[in-house]
């Protein structure tokens, strides 16, 4: 690997496999997440991507932002498509139709593609045990179609289909816990990550790639457009999500939980909520209730990781 020297950022893989010229909005941390994931995966990778922002911004004909083989078929089926790539190549290598090679088979999709429309197909692929990685880029709504709610949108967020109004506080359901659903498939590796913590993220991707069998990565990907924050604050809000424990960073490896980062001190969720346009309508009591729920969820996670 060709690396910069001295400072830790400069130790990161220099090669870029998701390149410039993509059409993501200014300050899109989902695009940054894709870039970092690809750096960690490297050249010997095949990507199957779901319809969504990252697919659209990276592939307007006749160009592509991808430096690795990449396929997009539809919205809900990236995990089935990568299953086919993996199994097809496995058969051909076994039969001598292709020379053997270690390849990372990676499916990617947004939170809508993952937690909603593609849930059945993801479950099928995880359960079948393909040697693959599934990466969910969670920007907490259907951004590509104009900021509609998904089951991964947090309580209280105003989106175009969960708008705040006279009798509405925005999204009225709690965020679906996708990593736990992945864990319920008894796969060898599940982790959460955020590009505001790039080294943690890339370590997890490398781990997922090294492990045989299915791995699931859930990456909180700040979307300045949909969250209604200034573009330069995309990294800051990711950091706040983690430091307030709204989005804890943890791994689940061969049956054991571990927190990969413990914020000290834990910041009040208010710091995360305030300043995001999607939460602007929330009052003090609403933020308190988010605080309470965040605390409880985090404590559960700490307990799980201490048990192990």
């Amino acid at each position, binding site marked *: 690997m060709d690396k910069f020297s001295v400072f830790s950022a400069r130790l990161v893989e220099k090669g870029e496999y998701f390149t410039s010229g993509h059409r993501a909005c200014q300050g899109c941390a989902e695009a940054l997440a894709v870039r970092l994931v690809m750096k960690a995966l490297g*050249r*010997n*990778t*095949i990507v*199957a991507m779901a319809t969504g922002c990252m*697919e*659209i911004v990276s*592939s*307007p*004909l*006749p*160009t*592509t932002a*991808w*430096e*690795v*083989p*990449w*396929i*997009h*078929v*539809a919205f*809900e*089926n990236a995990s*089935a*498509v*990568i*299953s*086919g*790539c*993996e*199994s*097809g*190549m*496995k*058969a*051909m290598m*076994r*039969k001598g*139709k*292709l020379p053997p*090679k270690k*390849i990372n088979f990676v499916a990617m999709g947004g939170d809508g593609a993952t937690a909603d429309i593609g849930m*059945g*197909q993801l*479950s*099928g692929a995880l*359960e*079948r045990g393909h040697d693959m990685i599934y990466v969910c880029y969670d920007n907490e709504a259907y951004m590509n179609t104009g900021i509609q709610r998904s089951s991964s949108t947090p309580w209280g967020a105003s989106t175009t289909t969960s708008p705040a109004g006279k009798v509405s506080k925005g999204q009225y359901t709690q965020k679906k816990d996708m990593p736990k659903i992945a864990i319920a498939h008894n796969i060898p590796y599940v982790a959460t990550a955020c590009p505001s913590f790039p080294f943690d993220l890339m370590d997890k991707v490398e781990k997922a790639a090294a492990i045989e069998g299915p791995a699931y990565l859930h990456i909180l990907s700040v979307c300045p457009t949909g969250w209604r924050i200034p573009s330069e604050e995309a990294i800051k809000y990711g950091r706040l999500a983690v430091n307030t424990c709204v989005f804890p960073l943890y791994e689940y490896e061969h049956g054991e939980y571990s927190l990969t980062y413990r914020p000290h001190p834990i910041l009040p969720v208010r710091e995360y909520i305030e300043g995001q346009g999607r939460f602007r309508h929330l009052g003090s009591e609403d933020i308190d209730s988010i605080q309470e729920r965040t605390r409880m969820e985090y404590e559960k996670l700490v307990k799980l990781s201490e048990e192990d």
Partner: protein
Amino acid sequence: MAKERKGIEVSLAIAEAVGQADCDLISAYPITPQTHIVEHLSEMVADAHLDAEFVPVESEHSAMSVCCGAAAVGARTFTSTSSQGLALMAEIFFIASAMRLPVVMALANRSLSAPLSIWNDHSDTMMVRDGGWIHVFVENGQEAYDHVFWAFRVAEDPAVRLPVALNIDGFIMTHMIEPVDFEDDELIKRYIPEFRMEKPLHPDNPVSMGCFAMPEIYSEAQMTRERALVDSYATCVKAWEEWAAVTGRQYHPVETYRADDAEYCIVTMGSLGETAMAAVDELREQGEKVGVIKIRLWRPFPFDDLYRAAAGKHTLIVLDRAISFGGPGGPVALELRSALCNSPQAPVVVNYVAGLASRDVTVEDFKAIILGGKAKSAEGDVAGFTFYGLRG
């Protein structure tokens, strides 16, 4: 496998053919009446009788998606479904052809819900008529067996690279035990050489597949599909000729029976052809100048073959096994009417819909349909369609 004649259930013959074709990946989901095909394939894989990956997916949508992924890396790929399964995979059906992924699918034709029915007609396949696939219809077990190889041969041809749907009437064919002449493996290997895809997904040569199109370029992308499908006709015919040269069994895009001097022809697709021929034999004995026209290649539509077959006929009586609700009749009649409308001395087209959900169409029924069509033609009662055998 060596050359031999076997009495075998047609579904199993199809599965054995997929094995002889040395398929790399099979992905499918159970649905009647297709199930025996994939059950047998999974047995073959389990017994190491076929070295392939069998991917037991959780839906037909996934089955087609898995096949797309596998075809994109250059694997020889097979799936099979029916009816609701096809409806569920329809989204990806269209994409497979657009991305030029040469998946082969045995489509055990079955009626669509509702009401739920597991029996046979052509409403499922007609739903995806415009999906950009090559569609072929077969009439018996031997034809089904032969066309598995033909389907791979055509689909993977570098000049074609399109998916192929092999339409087989559910139950009427899939569950019948018939005599089938099996060919030996060496012959098959020569007929379908190893699939060598140009630019598959591979890290050695990164390619992006399934990019999105702005309005400035979408039409151009659609034109490439249209031309690929139209141009595949030549390979379809050539592949039949090559098959005839090695097996002696010859197929054509449109086939006729006692049609040369016929004034009235019944037009069928699929397994009812044999019953239609028997009816024509009986009517001929009564002095009726009748014949049969069978459409084997449905997409790309064989216009010239149809013109030749229809030339000089007074009336074509089209038996449709699906309805275009609220439209001008059954889909096959609609196709023939539009294909023939500008040709000189175009025959009259009379349309019957019959045999929905395996409702019997016997020799007697065919005789009634042919004579009824003749009478309608004489009366000028030729618009729309007639629901044959309907109560009430």
